[in-house]
């Protein structure tokens, strides 16, 4: 059962018709509908292609947030072996919006950290929809520190609407935790590779994605503010999110032009959720190649700092 996005309604109708025809044929064996059904399949495939090759920035946001999109947990269980979750910030709590721990990638030990949104109501609430509290960032800092001491490359998987805007989170120093996490990213001597797999929401994403290499899935987004938030501030109308999404330049393709994203990872036709295995394999291959580009034996700090100091000087025009 596919969950269709609003803009996919025409597609849902065609695919629904084809499924209906086939169900009728199963009930009545004399009916010959296969030609007709295949024609509908073809029409659906064409429409899907047409839709997904011309996704507007706002539609990309919707695809990036799709409930069926593979999440951090799926990537970790498929791409890594011996994953050993490590919990807690040694200070207050364990934040379930952030998962992380030791694991092997291609047989080599690494530290993997990511935001997890959850995939049903119960797990979404437990994971707080991927919105981390200070504990989450402080756990990540602790794990990054450990990786640095033991010479393990760090891989971060970013998928968050943003850091959690709550009372307790503020009291416990949400901003300080994010600032320290970004700082830790910049202090690491070991390679740090980041993949934005869905939503890269503002400071909550930067805290993990200040990396030597930042890759983005083709329909993922990364932005200083959600289009809805931007629209309500600048247009004074949250319904102007389409315009805001356009203006913010938050797609992987635009961010690649700006030099914020180093690499775009292909998604299957129709988005990551239509073929999770293929998406996860693509991400795995990209992580492997990015790690290979970075010399593990060398102190990466200076190069990473330079990357960020030089960033964005030219803008889109260049």
């Amino acid at each position, binding site marked *: 059962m596919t969950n269709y996005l609003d803009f996919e309604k025409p597609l849902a109708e065609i695919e629904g018709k084809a499924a209906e025809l086939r169900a009728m044929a199963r009930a009545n064996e004399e009916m010959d509908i296969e030609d007709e059904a295949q024609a509908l399949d073809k029409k659906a495939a064409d429409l899907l292609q047409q839709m997904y090759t011309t996704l507007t920035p706002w539609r990309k946001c919707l695809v990036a947030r799709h409930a069926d999109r593979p999440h951090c947990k799926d990537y970790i269980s498929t791409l890594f072996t011996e994953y050993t979750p490590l919990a807690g910030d040694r200070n207050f709590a364990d934040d379930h919006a952030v998962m992380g721990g030791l694991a092997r990638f291609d047989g080599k030990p690494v530290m993997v950290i990511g935001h997890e949104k959850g995939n049903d109501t119960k797990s979404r609430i437990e994971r707080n929809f991927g919105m981390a509290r200070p504990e989450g960032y402080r756990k990540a800092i602790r794990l990054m520190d450990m990786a640095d001491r033991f010479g393990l490359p760090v891989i971060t998987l970013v998928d968050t609407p943003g*850091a959690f*805007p*709550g*009372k307790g*989170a*503020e*009291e*416990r*120093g*949400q*901003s*300080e935790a*994010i*600032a*320290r996490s*970004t*700082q830790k*990213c*910049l*202090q690491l001597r070991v390679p740090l590779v980041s993949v934005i797999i869905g939503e890269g929401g*503002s*400071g909550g994403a*930067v*805290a993990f994605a*200040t990396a030597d290499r930042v890759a983005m899935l083709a329909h993922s987004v*990364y*932005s*200083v*503010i959600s289009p809805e938030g*931007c629209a309500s*501030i*600048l*247009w004074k109308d949250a319904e102007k999110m389409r*315009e*805001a999404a356009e*203006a*913010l*330049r*938050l797609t992987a393709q635009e*961010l690649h032009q*700006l030099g*914020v994203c180093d690499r775009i990872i292909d998604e299957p036709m129709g988005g990551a959720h239509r073929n999770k295995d293929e998406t996860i394999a693509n991400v795995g291959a990209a992580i492997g190649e990015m790690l290979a580009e970075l010399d593990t034996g060398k102190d990466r700090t200076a190069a990473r*700092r330079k990357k*960020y*100091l030089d*960033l*964005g*000087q*030219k*803008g*889109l*025009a260049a």
Partner: protein
Amino acid sequence: MNWISNYVRPRINSIFSRREVPENLWSKCDECGTMLFHRELAENLNVCTSCGHHMQISPRDRFANLFDGGAFAEVDVPVPNADPLNFRDQKKYPDRLKAAQKQTDEKEAMLVGTGDMGRTPIVAACQDFSFMAGSMGMYVGNAIIAAAEKAVERQCPLILFTAAGGARMQEGILSLMQMPRTTVAIEMLKEANLPYIVVLTHPTTGGVTASYAMLGDVHIAEPNALICFAGPRVIEQTIREKLPEGFQRAEYLLDHGMLDRVTERGKMRDELITITRMLMGLDPAITGDLPAPDITEAEDMLEAVKGEDSTS
């Protein structure tokens, strides 16, 4: 509404009801409503003489009070691409920038200066809330980097006064990238073992708080300053409950361990002198009447500053 009510009537009104006092002589305290004479208010560093409410103060006014004799050399900030995303909301971004420049008479939302504060060499950077809400874009990032580089070059502390609504949305992702960029600047100071003092003023929010504002060796805030990551309105909408009195204000943050001190504007300079001199291993500052500086010393200093200018 028509031409008569929009245009004619205000014109007529303006002819007949001339203001009794020029607009700029008096200002009203936003907190207690007391009318304050502008000169008195300026002498009190824009702090209400009646209730002690701290109002906005421009970076230049702040520096005039901070540096000895109000004298400082402005540090050059590399000017970035003015509109990297060709951003357009209801107005074009360059138009918004121009309007802010005209209104404030400043280039951008941060001023960087170097000079002496209580005979202690410092670099100071000050965010300007009146310039597009002090928002952090490429220029502010460049300013903080330039300030850190100057402090390292002069081997002196950096004092940074924050005031911002957050990131500059019109620069999109590039404003977000100022979080890591400014953090690199702070790392430079840390490596050079130089004090980095943050003075948080009203309001300091969003991406600014979540980067350089929370990475200081010492955090001092002005009384009642709003300091937060997510603003109170956003939180109330999320958790659907009323927030406690004074939530996210300086005193509240002090109680929750995020600040070292809350200090009134009038006492800030002395406190900064005391702290920086201790961290730099200098003798206590001389208070009261200072003897005239040794003439050769002053000349050396001038030479040093000149030398720096020619190299920068």
